[in-house]
């Protein structure tokens, strides 16, 4: 899948709506929900279990129809993304990435984050996500304590994830790739020398083990 979903400067192209309407949604939606669920791990591992995968899929669909919040849209370029599922996965990933980027800015804009108001379910979810860090700012002893506790929980959760490999050498090497921010099969294959099929199998083992990390 294309890593970065480029926001096009041109206006929304309404001619794609007919293709969107006629798409085989019954088979596309389960795949999108599953992809969104796996992307939601980012928030779950941060300690926020409020974001429902369905909201991410819904937001991606609204953007594809040119009906995102505040007039937001994503143009489906069929030459670039012949497969609608891949396109929408890219949109979901872009939405999640945007939200996580907000979190990464902590603590520099923590006051700004507190000021923002939600305008709908997705915005409310973003607000909930931000609340992970709300308690991490401020000067009061209570706020400092809460910040300490949340940092500790997050750190412990990441330690658990990192220790999933146990004695599995292959898994340990792939985990090291994650630490470097390497996530695509192709990049992991280049970094480790494993073939793509092996990386798929290792990732599946990681996925099974990660299921129990709450």
């Amino acid at each position, binding site marked *: 899948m294309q890593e970065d979903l480029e926001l096009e400067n041109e206006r929304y192209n309404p001619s794609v709506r007919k293709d969107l309407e006629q798409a085989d949604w019954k088979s596309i939606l389960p795949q999108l929900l599953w992809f969104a669920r796996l992307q939601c791990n980012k928030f779950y591992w941060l300690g926020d279990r409020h974001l429902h995968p369905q909201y991410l899929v819904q937001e991606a*669909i609204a953007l594809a129809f040119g009906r995102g919040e505040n007039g937001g849209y994503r143009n489906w370029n069929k030459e670039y993304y012949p497969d609608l599922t891949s396109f929408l996965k890219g949109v979901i990933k872009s939405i999640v990435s945007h939200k996580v980027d907000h979190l990464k800015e902590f603590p520099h804009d923590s006051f700004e984050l507190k000021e923002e108001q939600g305008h709908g379910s997705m915005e409310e979810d973003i607000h909930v996500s931000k609340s992970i860090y709300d308690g991490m700012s401020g000067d009061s002893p209570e706020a400092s304590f809460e910040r300490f506790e949340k940092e500790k929980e997050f750190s412990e959760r990441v330690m658990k994830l990192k220790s999933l490999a146990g004695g599995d050498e292959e898994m340990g090497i792939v985990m090291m790739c994650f630490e470097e921010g390497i*996530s695509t099969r192709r990049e992991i294959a280049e970094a480790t020398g494993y073939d793509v099929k092996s990386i798929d199998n290792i990732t599946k083992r990681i996925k099974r083990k990660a299921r129990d990390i709450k």
Partner: protein
Amino acid sequence: MQNSDEIKKNLLFIEAMADAMSECDDASIGEIREELKADGIDLDVSVNHLMDFIRICAMDAKRESLDEAANAREVMEAEDRCLVGKFSAYSKDQLLTLIKSLLTLPEEQIGLAYRELDGKNQEDLASILEDLEAAKNLASKKMQKNENHS
């Protein structure tokens, strides 16, 4: 207390891990159903909810397209009165040919994407053609305006 570098490193790790897990996505429908169920998510309920949402999006989009066409027609009627009724004497075949010749440009498809042209009567086709001509005139006027400004 952790420093922000450590938090950023941890964020980088969980992002990469979640992305890798998302990319490895050859799960069957049955597996997806079971995995989501384990998280308290009913796949069928979510799919039905999203199908409803898609229907709403499609209907809103149609309404928006038709509104745009209606607006274009109103503007046209106000600015170019001689266009109204211009095609009333054309045959259905002539109207279809003219409309299809204008449909080659994507930006001129607004308002037409959802209409079954062959099933329309002569009067409707003449109206659609008027809308298209109006849209074309408006676009041309806008372009002219922009050129004059620049």
